[in-house]
């Protein structure tokens, strides 16, 4: 069984603070990390690999050449290898163009039974690329998956939906997007790090995928960003200190009554 795990490199924003005056993000540079939910996807692939014979796990990413680090990290955690899609033709791709490139890469890898990725990335937060890849490949998709059982030719999944869970069975090949609850991601091992150092990870460009520049990047993207602006954080905070008079709670109840909430 061959599993492709899609990983996206995102800014590591663990220590982000907001400027209280402007509401602008102050980002302490922690470098880039693997999108956290993609780590869950990778861990799930590795879990399947541990539970079955003959499972190969390949990490696939699209990004600048620095995204090679993310693939090496995946190998250090236990992936068998990977491929990086990189080059100028990919720059400026929206979710559709990105899905087109990643779908082509999965086809080129060949014989992929299962594609796993995070439900969304922490930077764009669209959650669209996974399903769009499935649509491009013409394979079934399940999203928001928190439990996965793999059989030879099918997977049974449990999705986290509004107010509960849905259990669905899909035939392989399929694409599954996972949520955090599915597992606890592991860590790179020492032998993994050695393997990662020696691993040769191919870099594929548009030509390698048989895609024309018109299908990728800005040209291949139906959407355009018109403008970017800072959200107005226009909340003025009424702050009260708790004391033993009950005043703070009374003020809160008055505030909620004024707003017609409680």
């Amino acid at each position, binding site marked *: 069984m061959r599993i492709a795990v899609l990983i996206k490199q995102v800014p590591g924003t663990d220590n*982000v*603070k*907001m400027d209280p005056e402007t509401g602008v*993000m102050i980002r302490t540079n922690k470098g880039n990390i693997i999108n956290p*939910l993609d780590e869950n996807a990778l861990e799930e692939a590795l879990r399947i690999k541990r539970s079955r014979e003959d499972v190969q796990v390949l990490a696939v990413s699209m990004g600048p050449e620095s995204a090679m680090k993310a693939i090496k990290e995946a190998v250090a955690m236990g992936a068998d290898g990977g491929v990086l899609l990189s080059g100028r033709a990919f720059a400026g791709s929206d*979710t*559709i163009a990105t899905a087109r490139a990643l779908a082509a890469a999965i086809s080129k890898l060949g014989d992929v039974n299962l594609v796993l990725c995070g439900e969304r990335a*922490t*930077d*764009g*937060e*669209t*959650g*669209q690329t996974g*399903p*769009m890849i499935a*649509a491009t490949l013409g394979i*079934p*998709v*399940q*999203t*928001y998956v928190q439990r996965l059982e793999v059989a030879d030719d099918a997977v049974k999944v449990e*999705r*986290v939906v*509004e*107010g*509960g*869970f*849905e*259990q*669905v*069975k899909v035939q392989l090949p399929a694409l599954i997007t996972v949520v*955090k609850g599915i597992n606890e991601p592991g860590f790179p091992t020492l032998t993994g790090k050695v393997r990662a150092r020696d691993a040769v990870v191919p870099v594929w460009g548009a030509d390698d995928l048989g895609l024309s520049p018109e299908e990728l990047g800005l040209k291949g993207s*139906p*959407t*355009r960003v018109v*403008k*970017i*602006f*800072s*959200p107005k*954080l226009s*909340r*003025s*905070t*009424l*702050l*009260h*200190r*708790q004391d033993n008079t*009950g005043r*703070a*709670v009374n003020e*809160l*109840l008055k*505030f*909620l*009554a004024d707003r017609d*909430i*409680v």
Partner: protein
Amino acid sequence: MDIQNYKGVMVLGEQKDGHIRPVTFELLNRGRDLADKLGVELSCSILGNEIEDLTEIIYRGADKVFHVAGPALAGFLPGPYARALVRLVQEERPEIFIAAATTTGRTVMPLVAAGLKTGLTADCTLLDIDDKEKILLQTRPAIGGNIMATIKTPFTRPQMATVRPRSARPAHRDESRTGLISVKNYGDSPVSAVERFLAYVPDATQEVSIEDADIIVAGGKGLKTRDGFKLVEELARLLGAGVGASRDVVDLGWASYPHQIGLSGKTVSPKLYIAVGISGKVQHLAGMQTSETIVAINRDPEAQIFQVADFGIVGDAFEVLPELMGALKNAPGRRLREGSEDNAL
């Protein structure tokens, strides 16, 4: 693609067990506004075999309802739903097609967009029409809500977007409105051979569904223990509210993952969000800062959560919450609304 051939606004309604979900009425409000700005018709597509009270969709602003039925559409499966919607869009050719950013909308719309080779913008909080170009302006938060991006789809149709639930009010109900309900029987669409729905299991830990709750009470690490977190659950029960949790709390096992609010959990916009013992990391704020009213209770006056709060109490949750619950119980005239009228539908 001749984009002139596409006319009208279509929204994707949602139903569960034959009942129209309230999020549909929010979309109709958005859709009506866009259709009026363009001077075009508003239609609503809704999939499933037996759906009650489709006239309600007309009362809420639609000019046309397309009830799409077929053996493959009995329950939500991404493949059959997407194929039916691609077919419907090709038949009806709306210039704008919007859905709710629910687990259903966020799953099926990317499939439809890819099938139609058009653009899709996720989780918009604002939709408008460009006065000059007469095209859809889709505004959404990104990077944890720290920036807003406005996006357009200039060359292809329909222009597609998912809209964050509760970011608009439900459409006003007007029983004098009239419209056309048409059934599209896609009986020839094959039942999916590769996808099979097995079961829906309600989450026993969500007395009130987090996505549908008017009020959410959320707790963080400041509650110290699993027992401490129970205070949050108690307050939620008293208010008829959903229970939310910070990532720390879920990692500690005090609450299960479906309760997690934030960047790697759920994004919510209730009428009232009460954050208890939550410091307000950017990752958490990303999931709740569009709530209508935010109340924060935290011991640390410097806690970042106060920056997004409308009302804050600096104090120990173990003092504030019991006092608050006592006051709520002893105030007979103060009654909590059991959801809005729409939730009763």
